[in-house]
């Protein structure tokens, strides 16, 4: 498709001109075919100086009324979490809905849900970095921040599920005066501790590495000496020295290469919590890939939700374009289909294994008393994302937003289905039971959203929400410099190959 309204080598486009298709230059390809060029990642003829201003602005000006409104709502839910925590510590675990036979309830569901949300950030920052997906630059900073905050929410639940949260440090193997009494390294719960804490720390390191040059940018824009000093300390005195960039880039690549298998390992280990048990419905080899793909699916849904806010609230449409949203929609559809495939495989294996217990659990899961949850899960996760076969749906932010919410609802219910339906009817019909969430279960779930959004709203107030230095690197230098090159100077500049100019 040729684009009569554009120069064939257009690097300046408006949002409205983006189509999500390459710009075709007929006959300009290396063998005489068509040359297809991608659309620019940043729209609106932005210069490098504009990028600094547009992105740092939100951390430099006084918060808007809309921000206070959103922050107030988030803070109210955080207060609910605090109230629920105090009540839990005062009254004990009896305030929750867990009991025999369903002894793992909403806390484990919320834990798996939040840790799943946390997967998309590192996937975007590490896996897409290794695959040279340059569109990641617009969204990776916020997605990584989302990861960190989701891990905070996730980490809360196993700790309070211990019952005596103040002894949580006993999970850490350190020489102690109790024997020493060590943790059991054969237990998946001990693996979980290492997996989640490693994931949190490595994600934090990766995020902070990416922030260093941008903190220096904020420092150089600061007018108040204390603000300048603070951001200078936070950026470790970053100057942009090429001798520092050399090691920085190498370390960033290494971190991406380490974080990629880490993403897959974390939810694999979370799935071991279930898969190494001998419960029908949990004891299956499909669990690690099934959990990992579900995590990526739900994480991308949350990224789409947050990016819709960033585009709307913070006017980031030039940096998070419709093309970015469409790419995420494609990933959402792909992972949604993989999740749907896993649901079907589970059913097939339950029949094919000829295990009576396994067969019963799955019939009970889909058609038993919790069939409504299964139907909700299947509809939201496997059927709704099929909308994205249609390009117009992928580029409609309202549809994207609604689907992303539905997917998150569906993924919460996936964990609900896995945890509750496997437990509530086990081998002995005499010990069957039902599980219902109490007010406090809901308070913890809503409160964890309060924690998440409070942290996220604070993040957008104090730090650059888009990776400035990375976005600058994917812009066309000829446009992004903004001022014409002085001709007197240009005459003395040695000839540079065109390829080097496009660095």
């Amino acid at each position, binding site marked *: 498709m040729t684009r009569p309204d554009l120069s064939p080598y257009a690097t300046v486009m408006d949002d409205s001109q983006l189509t999500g298709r390459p710009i075709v230059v007929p006959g300009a390809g290396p063998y005489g075919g068509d040359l297809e060029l991608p659309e620019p990642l940043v729209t609106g003829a932005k210069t490098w100086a504009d990028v600094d201003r547009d992105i740092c602005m939100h951390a430099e000006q006084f918060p808007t009324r809309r921000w206070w409104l959103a922050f107030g709502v988030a803070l109210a839910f955080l207060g609910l979490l605090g109230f629920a925590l105090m009540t839990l510590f005062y009254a004990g675990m009896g305030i929750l809905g867990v009991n025999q036979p369903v002894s793992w309830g909403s806390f484990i569901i919320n834990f798996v849900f939040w840790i799943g949300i946390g997967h998309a950030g590192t996937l975007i920052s590490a896996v897409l970095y290794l695959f040279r997906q340059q569109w990641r630059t617009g969204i990776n900073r916020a997605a990584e921040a989302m990861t960190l905050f989701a891990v905070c929410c996730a980490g809360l639940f196993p700790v309070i599920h211990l019952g005596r949260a103040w002894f949580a440090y006993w999970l850490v193997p350190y020489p102690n005066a109790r024997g020493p009494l060590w943790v059991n390294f054969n237990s998946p719960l001990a693996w979980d501790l290492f997996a989640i804490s490693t994931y949190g720390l490595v994600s934090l390191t990766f995020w902070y590495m990416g922030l260093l040059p941008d903190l220096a940018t904020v420092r150089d824009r600061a007018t108040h000496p204390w603000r300048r000093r603070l951001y200078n300390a936070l950026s470790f005195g970053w100057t942009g020295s090429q001798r520092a960039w050399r090691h*920085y880039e190498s*370390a960033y690549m290494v971190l991406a290469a380490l974080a990629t298998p880490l993403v897959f390992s974390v939810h694999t280990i979370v799935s071991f919590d279930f898969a190494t048990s001998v419960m029908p419905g949990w004891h299956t080899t499909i669990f690690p890939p099934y959990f990992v793909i579900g995590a990526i699916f739900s994480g991308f849904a949350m990224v789409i939700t947050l990016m819709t806010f960033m585009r709307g609230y913070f006017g980031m449409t030039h940096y998070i374009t419709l093309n970015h949203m469409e790419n995420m929609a494609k990933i959402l559809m792909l992972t949604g289909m993989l999740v749907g495939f896993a649901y079907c495989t589970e059913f097939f294996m339950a029949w094919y294994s000829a295990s009576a217990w396994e067969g019963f659990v799955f019939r009970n899961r889909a058609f038993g008393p919790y069939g409504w949850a299964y139907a909700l899960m299947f509809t939201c996760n496997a059927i709704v994302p099929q909308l994205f076969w249609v390009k117009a749906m992928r580029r409609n932010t309202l549809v994207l937003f609604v689907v992303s919410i539905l997917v998150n609802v569906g993924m919460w219910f996936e964990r609900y289905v896995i945890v509750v339906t496997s437990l509530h009817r086990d081998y002995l019909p005499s010990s069957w039971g039902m599980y219902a969430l109490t007010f406090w279960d809901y308070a913890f779930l809503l409160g964890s959203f309060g924690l998440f959004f409070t942290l996220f709203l604070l993040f957008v107030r104090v730090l650059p929400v888009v990776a400035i230095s990375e976005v600058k690197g994917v812009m066309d230098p000829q446009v992004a410099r903004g001022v014409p090159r002085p001709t007197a100077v240009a005459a003395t500049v040695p000839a540079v190959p065109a390829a080097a100019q496009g660095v």
Partner: protein
Amino acid sequence: MKPTSSTGVLGDFYLPGDALAAAARVRAAGWTHFDMLTPFPVHGMEDAMGQGRSWIPWVTAGLALFGVAFAQLLQNYVMVWDWPMNFGGKPHAAWPSFVPITFELMVLCAAIGSAIVAIVAGKRQAVPPPPLVRTGATVDRFVLWISATDPKWQAAEVQAFVRSLGADDVRLVDAKGGADA
């Protein structure tokens, strides 16, 4: 570590490619105590400045091996030596169940260690202008800095040389950190 000084010459370049060509010429002219300050990494600059590839991956490999060794020693010490327990007659040194923690500690040590080493090495090897000078290199400028510690240093000559590279806004920075147009 290269000696740093608060005296030197700054020159701005218009585009990454100009900076790349300039860096190669500064190096070819025999300067060693110089640096290029850029808002984002300019690919090919390591070669233009004659630095070669970063050695960070070797640090990562060493730290990863340390993480593996530490995790294996910890788990075997606890499960086999210090607190052996019988779980259904299974062996004490149940290596498959030690794999997850070994992997996690490998990644943890390698990732955090590499990041710290990279930041420290970058700080130590950089030849930056004095911290009070606003170079604009975090915004949109590609800035060449030649430090007065370079053995070839001659203030007037250096400014002429930097201008001959095509730099804009060439200025001498004196020992007090102020910029002289």
